[in-house]
């Protein structure tokens, strides 16, 4: 193995990437994803966490109350979110259809301690973002009433749950999403892109029949493969680093950024070597990419199902929760890299011999 040869091959690949401006597309792609994830943050997480939706507007929704008196009416009247009107059911629903109201509640005269349940009928509008917000606000009211009823009927319960008082917390809704999903996803994406790239780089030499020219140079076949792996590997921490920097600029504090990059660099090398092996075996892009992407899904799913996996390590590093076991995970990954690296090297040497004799 000659370091200079490796860097020549890696440089050649970088030149190709820059020349074709494909690297631009890759960056554009990631930017696009970032844009969408910011959309995700607001849109999706507000669905996960409806309380952030209701902060949306400080508006008293007009609701109608029909049927018999109950504590629900008091709760609604006291709530800052609602303006309640006592109405008959039919005109109330008609007014709802005209959007003069946001919801109609009908409460029957069931006594609190009846054998059967109290059934409240709630009329809301279909397909409406507003009724989603109203539902969220009404839910609190209904939950309060449910607590009251449970207390009345408490003596009928066989077993009481262990009481834990949890203070209502506001905010923090994006935290789990950002650290537990977005950051591992964004940081890991360059690894997936690079592993697909290495397949293209290797199969291209075969399908464009440039491999013979390359082999006739002093560079050995194994060096060619390693040079390509090197080029792809170098791209990963750079892109992941830019991601982390961007997130930090957006006031998302990330701890242990250096360790995260180390983790990503090692883990991505596993994927890239897997890609290189697949490409060496098939020497044809369609088959190699198909097999590799299927294998990738299997591997990633399997790894995610294991506790203490490298992706989880990214999350824990980012929130500053990784203990000494991180070195164990990293060590396992390094061993995997060494084994795969050895297999790739032998395979490449063997293939190189075949090419020379042929």
């Amino acid at each position, binding site marked *: 193995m000659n370091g200079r040869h490796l860097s020549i091959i890696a440089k050649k690949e970088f030149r190709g990437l820059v020349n*074709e401006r494909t690297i631009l597309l890759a960056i554009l*792609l990631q930017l696009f994803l970032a844009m969408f994830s910011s959309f995700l943050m607001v849109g999706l997480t507000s669905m996960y966490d409806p309380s952030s939706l209701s902060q*949306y507007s400080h508006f008293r929704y007009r609701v109608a109350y029909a049927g018999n008196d109950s504590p629900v009416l008091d709760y609604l009247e006291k709530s800052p979110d609602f303006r309640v009107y006592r109405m008959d059911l039919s005109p109330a629903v*008609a007014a*709802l259809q*005209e959007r003069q109201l946001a919801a109609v509640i009908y409460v029957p005269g069931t006594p609190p301690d009846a054998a059967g349940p109290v059934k409240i009928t709630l009329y809301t509008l279909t397909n409406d973002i507003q009724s989603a917000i109203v539902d969220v606000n009404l839910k609190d009211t*209904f939950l309060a009433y449910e607590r009251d009823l449970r207390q009345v009927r408490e003596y*009928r319960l066989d077993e009481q749950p262990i009481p834990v008082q949890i203070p209502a917390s506001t905010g923090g809704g994006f935290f*789990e999403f950002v650290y537990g999903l977005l950051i591992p996803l964004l940081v890991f994406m360059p690894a997936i892109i690079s592993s697909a790239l290495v397949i293209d780089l290797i199969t291209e030499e075969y399908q464009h029949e440039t491999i013979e020219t390359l082999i006739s140079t002093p560079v050995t076949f194994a060096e060619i493969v390693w040079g390509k792996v090197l080029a792809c590997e170098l791209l990963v921490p750079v892109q992941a680093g830019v991601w982390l920097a961007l997130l930090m600029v957006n006031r998302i504090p990330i701890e242990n950024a250096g360790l995260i990059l180390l983790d990503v660099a090692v883990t991505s090398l596993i994927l890239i070597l897997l890609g290189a092996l697949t490409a060496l075996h098939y020497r044809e892009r369609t088959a190699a990419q198909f097999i590799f992407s299927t294998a990738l899904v299997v591997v990633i799913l399997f790894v995610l199902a294991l506790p203490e996996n490298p992706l989880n390590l990214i999350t824990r590093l980012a929130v500053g929760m990784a203990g000494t076991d991180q070195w164990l995970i990293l060590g396992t990954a390094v061993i995997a890299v060494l084994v795969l690296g050895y297999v790739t090297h032998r395979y490449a040497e063997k293939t190189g011999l075949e090419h020379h004799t042929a």
Partner: protein
Amino acid sequence: MGAIKDIATIARWEVKKSVSVMSRDVLPIAVVLFVLLIIVTGFVAQSGLHLQDGMYRLGVDDPKVAGIFTSDTRFTVYETDTASLLANRDAFDVIITGGQAYGSPTEKGKSALQTLQRDYTSYTNGVYTKEGDLFAAYPLWIDVQNVKSELDFVSTQNGQLVSSAPSAAAPPEPQGGVTTIPTPSPTIGFTQEQLRQELVKSSSQTSPISRYTQVLTPAGASMGSFETPSQLSPPLPFDSIILVFVFIFPLYFTSQFFMMSIMNERIERKGEVLLSLPVRASSIIIGKALPYLLGMVSICAGLTFYLRASPIIILPLIPVIFFFLANALLIGMLSRSFKELSFVSIFFSTVATSYLFFPSIFANVHVISLISPLTLIVLTLQGTAWTVTDYLYSTALFWLTSAVLFYIAAVNFREERLFSEKRLLPRLREFLAETLSRRHPYVSLFLLAVFSIPFVFMVQMLCLVLFFNLPMPYSLVLLIVFAALIEELAKAVGVYTLFVQDPSFLSWKGLVAACAATAIGFLAGEKLLLFVTLSQITQSVFGSVLFLSLGVLWMPLAIHFAGVFIVACALKYGGRRGFVAGLAAATAIHCLYNLTIILGWIG
């Protein structure tokens, strides 16, 4: 008749070729991987996804309380005595002592409290569902009746207020007729055991894996519209995410094969044989695409059958399949190398998946979700009916764009285009140039403008989806700028292409005529498509930004003309480098125009 025979022959060749490539040793490994995938999926279902393990530190002084939360792997639970808990409070995100939880005041602490709350609720639900007297544990049931409003989402943009001023003390009086609503029965028509089963089922859905499978076989239907208060929440988008992947992934894979097959014809001029056949290019393309089309449709049909869903969900998928194939064809024809192919196709599939997926998140919440055909699938699976208009509304753009893309591919499926080694953008321009006739440049420009409309709308829709969740003034401003930029770009492309081919084309007479042809074409296309499909969005505030030009005719025509004219002049004087400057100027003027109209409209 001859064409059909040609197509059949080429389709047969295509199948034979791909089978020979595949069968070597791809198929056995693919089968092994597939079996592994099933095993791994089972493993994941059992062990769960461990992405968020150990995010929070939880300190507890009561082993019984600790037992509630140890099953949630997000918490690392520490059990110690009260005194040391209080002494090391800062080391924990949450501590629970004496049955009271305290969170640290950080974002992480707040988030941990929320997770704790959710876990506790599911614990109490677990206890309550085992109660002998279910109605003591769940004394309150909500029967949610959805009422269809006569007014549409026109009035409720983005959570804007519907009702009139809230200050009115008097109850609202319905303006129209009042239909008598029967007084709801105070009893639930289900036994305790039926309700208990449903509660157990819905609480088991908290595991992310089981939730995927629940949607696909419509659950909870037996319980009708009854919910306990804690179940009353906006529908989670998780299900549509999974749906998208179940249906889109196989389509994406298959279109990759098609893309590669096209690309392979171009490597080392292997496709010359095919081109030398006495067969029309369109027949070659259709013949090559046919096996993949049939494959994709049968995959979808198989999935539908497997999920025991209504076969009607194939209808919205067909335009999506065409769209994927058309794009695969063009990408295969355009890219120079495998790297380029990979990046362009990954880019395309990300954008397309976002376009398909993000709107469908809002399937139950907002009408805007209908711009994605996948929403129709979500609706079908839920058992909600949709109309022919809905179908047209959500699929028209897919049909139109695929047709245009196939046409562009067909006219360019020739030697000098396929085997050229130019860069991506010049190649794109050449492809476009091929569709423009030399003898009738103005007619071509007119048609190009007309047919660019579906693409413009598609991109604008994507922007609409992107921006619609930003706070109100920003979303509107961004939308105004992007809408203008996209329109100006689409209009300028034709003139630019002609100019690059032959700079002398832009004599003053030619320039004015070209601009007029483009402007008229753009206006005609816009109005045509609008009237067919998009009336729902056009009436909203956002719609008024995108499709302002419905009002008076001469004003939009003038602004369309002015836009291209600026760009054309910039080209004439600045050459190719003037293009960007001209585009910026045209966009700015377009924005100003839009702003004045909107301000006049609203204020």
